[in-house]
């Protein structure tokens, strides 16, 4: 074994770091992005976001043959409208995934990011690089949020694309308002995606907090989803009255207000406030905890 260069002296800087070491250069966003991109979990999740609209599209083809009224009521009308154009198809795809699928995906990206490193044992090597703890968290959070947003955009984008190819480019229709011309409809769709992204910040915050609290990635993801479901259930109980407004899920479907004309922004604003507060609190706790805790994984 050759140890030829061992004598080459490293030149430490004033702070005592090795030559070429700068705390701010450690674990760049690009590096973390590639770390996560290499994971099968990431690819599956993103792939599913692309696949889901296609599955829905195929499912709608079957609907033609059946002469059942498909359960009737609202759902039937939802399907009817979903096939009226690309925008509506995208809207339908978002509608069916907003309440659960996207929550799981966001919880996956944000809950798994630190906990999985801890469970692999690679977290302690990153900290020994050393990647400053706050930086590690910040980069991980940014990348996790980035992937969450990418998932959201992939879902909507694919749905819009295949929906438009299959059903054409037509105005956005809904049960709650007059039809909206395609150009404005696209803006509304973007607005819906933006609001969903904001609401999901609360999930992201919760999952991230759990992620730095536990070494079990499954615990962080599952815990976040579990609590989200609990909040949804509590939100169904009208006896809670005004307390329901405090639940993170209470304003989760306020984006429906963007379908009406004029746009209803009251609940959206409140939902944004709620989600921002939750996310800020959760993230603050996560940073507070992680920058102080003993990493024993």
């Amino acid at each position, binding site marked *: *074994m050759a140890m030829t260069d*061992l004598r080459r002296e490293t030149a430490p800087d004033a702070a*005592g770091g090795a030559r070429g070491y700068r705390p701010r250069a450690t674990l760049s966003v690009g*590096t973390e992005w590639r770390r996560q991109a290499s994971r099968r979990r990431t690819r599956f999740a993103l792939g599913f976001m692309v696949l889901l609209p296609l599955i829905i599209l195929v499912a709608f083809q079957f609907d033609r043959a059946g002469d059942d009224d498909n359960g009737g009521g609202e759902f039937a009308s939802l399907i009817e409208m979903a096939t009226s154009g690309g925008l509506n198809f995208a809207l339908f795809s978002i509608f069916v995934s907003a309440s659960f699928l996207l929550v799981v995906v966001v919880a996956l990206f944000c809950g798994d990011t630190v906990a999985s490193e801890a469970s692999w044992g*690679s*977290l*302690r090597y990153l900290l020994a690089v050393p990647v400053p*703890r706050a930086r590690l968290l910040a980069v991980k959070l940014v990348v996790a949020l980035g992937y969450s947003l990418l998932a959201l955009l992939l879902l909507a984008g694919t749905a819009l694309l295949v929906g438009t190819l299959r059903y054409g480019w037509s105005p956005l229709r809904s049960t709650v308002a007059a039809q909206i011309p395609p150009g404005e409809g696209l803006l509304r769709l973007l607005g819906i995606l933006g609001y969903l992204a904001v609401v999901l910040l609360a999930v992201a915050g919760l999952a991230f907090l759990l992620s730095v609290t536990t070494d079990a990635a499954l615990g962080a993801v599952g815990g976040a989803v579990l609590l989200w479901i609990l909040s949804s259930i509590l939100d169904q109980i009208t006896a809670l009255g005004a307390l329901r407004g405090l639940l993170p899920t209470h304003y989760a479907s306020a984006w429906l*207000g963007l379908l009406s004309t*004029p746009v209803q922004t009251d609940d959206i604003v409140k939902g944004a406030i709620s989600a921002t507060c939750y996310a800020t609190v959760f993230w603050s706790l996560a940073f507070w905890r992680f920058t102080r805790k003993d990493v024993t994984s």
Partner: protein
Amino acid sequence: MSYRESISGIGWDERDLRSDDPRPPDRGQVVAGPARPGHRGQSGLSPPSASGSYGVLMPSLLLARLRRALRPGAGRGPDGVRTGSGASAGSDGARSVARAGRWRRRLTRRRVIAGSTALGLAAAAVGWAVWPERTSWSATDAVITVHSGPDGTEPVQLDTTFFLPHAASAAHPVPAVLLAHGFGGTKQSVRADAEDLADLGYAVLTYTARGFGRSGGQIHLDHPDYEVRDASRLLDWLAQRPEIRTDASGDPRVGVVGGSYGGGLALLLAAHDHRVDAIVPMVTWHDLARSFLPESTGRDPVDGVFKKGWAGLFFGSGGMTGPGGLTAPGDATGPGSGPDGTEAGDPAEREPGAGTPPGAAGGDPACGRFAADVCAAYLRIATSGRADADAVALLRRSSPAGVLDRITAPTLLIQGEADTLFPLSEADANARGIAANGTPVRVAWFTGGHDGGNGPQSDQDRIRYLTAQWLDHYLKGTGPAPSTSFTWSRIAGFDALDRGLIASGFTTTAYPGITGTSRVRVPVAGPAQRIANPPDGNPAAISALPFAGDLSALLDRVTGDLPGQHARFESAPLTEAVDVVGAPTVRIRAASPTGEAVLFVKLYDVDPDGPATLANGLVAPVRLTGLPADITAARPVGVTLPAIVRRIEAGHRLRIVVATADQAYATPAEPVTYTVALGDSAPAGAAPGNSAAAAPAPLTGAEVSLPTVAGEPIATSAAVWRWVLVGLLAAIVLGLVVLVAVLRRRHRRQDTSVVAEYADTPLVVRDLRKEYADGFVAVSRIGFEVRRGQVVGLLGPNGAGKTTTLRVLMGLTRPTAGEIYVFGHRLTPGSPVLSRIGALVEGPGFLPHLSGLENLRAYWRATGRPWEDAHLDEALEIAGLGDSVHRKIRTYSHGMRQRLAIAQAMLGLPELLVLDEPTDGLDPPQIAEMRRVLRRYATDGRAVLVSSHLLAEVEQTCTHAVVVHKGQIVAAGAVEEIVGESPSTQFDVSDPEAARAVLDRLSGVRVLPGTNGALVVDTNGTARSEVVAELVRAGIAVDRVVPRRRLEDAFLALVGENSRGSGDR
């Protein structure tokens, strides 16, 4: 789905006209006698405490439990630092020690704080939910007998409740509010409003009007001699109360508030009794005759079209309520009672005759509690569908229409847009009539009404605010004079969350009336069409179902006009949206073989892709007389359509429908065929699509004149929330900036000085101590140095504190006390100087889905250091994985991962290499190779720190050793020094007893106690050869002579024969 579908709560009292039950429809808590303190939380749902506390508790409890379950050490007991397998052989002794300390460990400070916080929150939540709400008033029920009637001598008992604020006293009298209920209701149906007003500091008198509930007397429909005089007597009663402020003796400072029937009373009382200081009539009538017999071309009620649907409901309810009526307590769940009807009322409130069969009570079964003249008038109108002059006079007597000029009390008129009973035009007439005297009048429209209920929350808030402002100024004398601005609202759509309706409010400086401030004229056109009047008005179009409630869900399916019974005239699509505020007008023509026609003119908003919508189900009934038989001879008449508030979007069409029959109205029984057309011949180019198809007939046309009002949107609480959001975001950004600034400053202040004496020493550990949160002391006091060129072994049994020391050294854990210096730099978690240390701590940590090579690359990329400094090839050579380096980590054996981890630690050739159990999992040749690598690594001024629990390992690899046991250093120094030969030697002999005797004779030689079979002898300078010679000489066979070494001695002496319990302190 129509928006009406989603409305289920209707606040006006007429709601329970549909119910047989006279109990208050919309109050969960019915209180008789002195007020009992209410509870916070949802009225009518019990217990409120449950809902209050669970909401707060459940998430936090669950979170806490979850966190406990997720905590890494939770499953492993307090000493989560155990690493190797040796330590897991926990003895009974260790267990008992652990058990003894369990309680103490569980009660750490953090847990105590968290627990008490949770307990405190729980207690607060329960307390908040259970604590009775303190009311600011007291309520007293009383039956007051008043004398009224034409002579003022007929006694009648009125069931009243008097709400008196606690603050009121004879010394501090307060103004009063007389609160009247709607038709079919009782004093209980306005209880919530009364409580609201009492909270605002008004003494409130609610009472059940005569003919209803437990009050006596008959219904005279707000007759000036009866109901109005009753109310006057109640003002007398108020004037006698010392707590009520008076303007003069016998003249209380009083306002009258009421909706519908109560609103009519407010107007009439203000007209007949000038002691009234302010009134707030809501959703009420101007002319009762015109309300029940409307005619939209401006004809008198004698020629009006009878609104039979509403009239029947009214009359029916008046007949059915009251003692001995059809009241059946168990009948609250009838189809019309809605959710409120299912709530059980206070038994004391039930009518004495409850449950008696229909008709069992005395009195006229045809008239119920109606006064005979009212009943007779109704029967006449309902029979013929036409009103005679007497009936109209009777209705006029009960109308403010003729007495508006006598009203001097400032009037706040609130009218509903969804009201087919008392449409906006009624309030409009009242407003104009009262304002003509110079009396201050303010008008507000909201999206509810007799059909629409209380309207969305924003409307309710606005009305509550306007009312309070009005009363405060004109009764209390506080606050500035309310402006006379006109406010209205428009349904904007569904609420996305609760599926209720939301409305946007608008305001303008002055009330423009129902004619608007400007008009938009939209041409409509269509050919003359023949339409048939169905015999006996059946089948008929259903435009609105009075109080349809849940049934209105069906409305969309059955609504619409019947073929052959209606004519349509459409406009071209609107080029821009029109906000209609007021009553549109249109001119039509009609021909009838009988010379007469009853027609219903409706204005639809036609969505090109959706349904045509009739705003609030409002129609304009017209009775035309003197018609020619031929349409060409017909003269146009102007029809004033009902006032609406609606935005008609661009691209939508207007459709004028003229129909022959309507479910809600009485129409002529004879089948006739009319011909209808628009007022004029069609203007050129006004041919809309569908009617052009009916080619041969010449087009007729007219302009629909749509009134509009320019208004400013009313800022809602949403604007506040928007600012809150902006503020929140700003605060977060500011907080982040401050945080970053503080951290930077702290970072700058951080001690970057170099301790000169350690500047060239790779590692100095001084007095290190690590105590975990649960009180476990992993390292009690450790101090050692690693100098350049040294390979230092950290030797100790499992659980001795080696790994904890290394964890602190890697910045993973914070020490409780003590310092670590690396090249003179103080080492803290995240210190840059860590970059000069390469580490393998607690086994490898790789991304399982990447290959070995990719893992090394990913790791180096994360350091952010230049590639050329990585020395990847050398590291790979050390790892010696060959082609396996391209395989995924998850396929690696333990040893392969270990080698790769060592290679990763060596990436960048750090000046200090820290390896935790590096030979773990390696086979003997690899171990030997590793030893050479490590020794060579340290030869050029670098240093290596190796931890191991294997003595041989340290002995063969290291230049120096530090022996750790139970968190403390027991030996340290150069390996030769401590591994060097011990003065003691072990002799295996054939006869230990004889040998002992021989050895005892040798001077200085000492047999150490405690060994059996073999003798351990301290030769103390005597050569071993000499000792052997002595033994042999004495005839003792010597099997083995094993020189003992110091380290082993020390190690065994400290550790014992096994390392059991070494992790316990």
